[in-house]
């Protein structure tokens, strides 16, 4: 452990800097006291900052009108993911018009870099980056989001409906 020995002739000059610092603090204190609306800091747990609607927060898997998962398990998001945090297991659906769907869809959020490539790669609007960002957990396993969490967590109130509709696609002959 090393100790820094200040030389006496250096230590004479600290007092003016402290005054300068105090002055800045006092300036902001008075400024904030005079007009509270323009205050930058928030009282965090009580007040929360509202982000832009384009904020890339935690992932949401969208659902179809009937509440089933929209995802077709094409794995383009997983292919595109630079952090390799998406793991999908596909299976055959009983309905031949659906054909392929994910039985497991896991995102390791601790690995995720929130780049949004998955959202852009998705051909059927099945994955979106939602507005949430406050997602604490007590151990590592809580940061691996499974399909139920991604699509049906309580905050989503029964799931976000995808803009891509199967019936309409079928009608328009796609």
């Amino acid at each position, binding site marked *: 452990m090393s100790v820094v020995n200040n030389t006496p002739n250096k230590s004479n000059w600290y007092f003016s800097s402290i005054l300068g610092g105090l002055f800045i603090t006092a300036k902001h204190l008075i400024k904030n006291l005079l007009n509270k609306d323009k205050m930058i800091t928030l009282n965090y747990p009580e007040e929360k900052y509202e982000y832009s609607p384009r904020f890339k927060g935690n992932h949401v898997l969208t659902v179809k009108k009937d509440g089933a998962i929209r995802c077709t398990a094409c794995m383009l998001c997983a292919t595109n993911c630079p952090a390799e945090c998406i793991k999908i297991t596909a299976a055959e659906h009983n309905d031949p018009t659906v*054909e392929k769907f994910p039985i497991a869809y896991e995102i390791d959020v601790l690995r995720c870099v929130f780049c949004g490539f998955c959202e852009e790669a998705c051909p059927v609007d099945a994955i979106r980056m939602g507005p949430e960002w406050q997602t604490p957990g007590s151990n590592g396993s809580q940061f691996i989001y499974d399909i139920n969490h991604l699509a049906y967590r309580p905050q989503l109130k029964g799931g976000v409906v995808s803009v891509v509709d199967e019936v309409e696609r079928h009608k*328009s002959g*796609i």
Partner: protein
Amino acid sequence: MPKCTINGQEVEVKEGSTIMQAFYQLDQGIAHYCYHPGLSVAGVCRLCVVDIEGNPRPQIACNTVVTEGMKVSNQSEKIKDGVKWILDFHLINHPLDCPICDQAGECGLQEQYMEYGKYNSEMAEPKVKKHKVVDLGPTVVLDSERCILCSRCVRFTDEVSKTNELGLFNRGDKTEIGTFEGKELNNKYSLNTVDICPVGALTSKDFRFRQRVWYLKNSETVCTGCSTGCNVKVYYNKEGAFRVKPVFNENVNGHWMCDEGRDIYKFVNIEHRQTLAHKMIGGQKSEMPAGQAATEAFQVVKSTPSEKLAVVLTGQYTNEEYEAVLKNFKTKNVFHWKNLENSMNDFDGLLIRGDKNPNTKGLEAAMKAAGIHTNWNDLEKSLSSGAITTVVVAGPENLAVYPDFADKVKLMAQAENVIWMTACHSEQFKAFNQSAFVIPTKSYLEKAGTFTNHAGLNQSFKKATTIVSHALTLSEASFLLTGQSIPIAVAPQAAAFVDVDRRADQVMIENRKKNEFVFKRGSL
């Protein structure tokens, strides 16, 4: 041997060969779907149109025989435009569901559309709806909408498997592939139809939805399903092997392979494998890595007098391994464990043989070369009489083709000491209740070597992947079991001095620039 000119390049082809074959010979690009070198010519996709000098109408390359001095070209604007349109005709009723199609990534339509496509399709009408997810049989699923009706699969069942299950039904744009009433596609070669399908219309039930193909690497190897030794490509990634496809070899398997051989990748995967070595001493079982087990087993081998030691080999290992075993053990008590002895010489006329080992011929040759002529019955007798106390068994990898496996395990369990080397785990090993070692070995995908097929043809193959990393090959195990250390092939030493300016693996700046993603402002 007529000579012709293809796009200005002269080529000499075999008598009676078509323009398409000349294109193949020159490795020149030509769009085609229905033509397959292993099948008859159908001439229905109409993509391979070419200009022949002196012929006013464009002809299809697959059905036009080359004549002396023919001048062929497919580079004119007229031909290119025609190909674009015909490719667009293929696509107007194709569902374009590439994201959920298993073929995406290795699809003929995708590849050829990138090269010859029209890009601005003018189709604005609704597409024809056909049947989805049609169950054709135990192995294959059909999606009629994706089908481009090249009729390769129909011709395959007609000409190669000669079972005629598939046919074309209905007319016009409602035409569909299908099986006849009450019949299903269940021949022993049915999965070849999936291979030759240029689109994702026929998919294998086994591989369906398990992986996207771009996650898979592939490596060429030799099929161990039977003594034919088909040349195959194994597709694998870090999760294990996923499928097997045939590779063209004129002398062995042509373009095809059997369905049985396609299942051979399964036992290689970790869930079937012996992952750790078992050591059994006086009913006490302990687990350890393979190398340690082999080293400890050497003590057993050393304490056995050489006439009381027997080595049992199966036809599932490579020639190199047999050589190493026979050289290291120096015993004449080497026995050949033959499975399915009655149907050994069966042959179905196309590929499948009754001998379900890849290397029976190789083992026989190695034993003959070492001057070993033994009889299996001698082993059984000496085991029961106690004349042999220690057996070293190189057990089979593919347990499914060894119906006598349980009996043989029980037979070997009579010996005082058993050293059993195996790639796959089996419940039968519980029969060993005294001194026994079970040592994991590498499967055929994890090692390089040579197999000798039924006709005596030596086929070498390379290592594809590693699944059980500490498992030993049979030669490594034989070194350890005889108290030697495994010889390590030393890589040739690099030159002592390299160019001062540059490391050997340095990426040069011009190469780096090529790989860099250049963001152009405004281009999005």
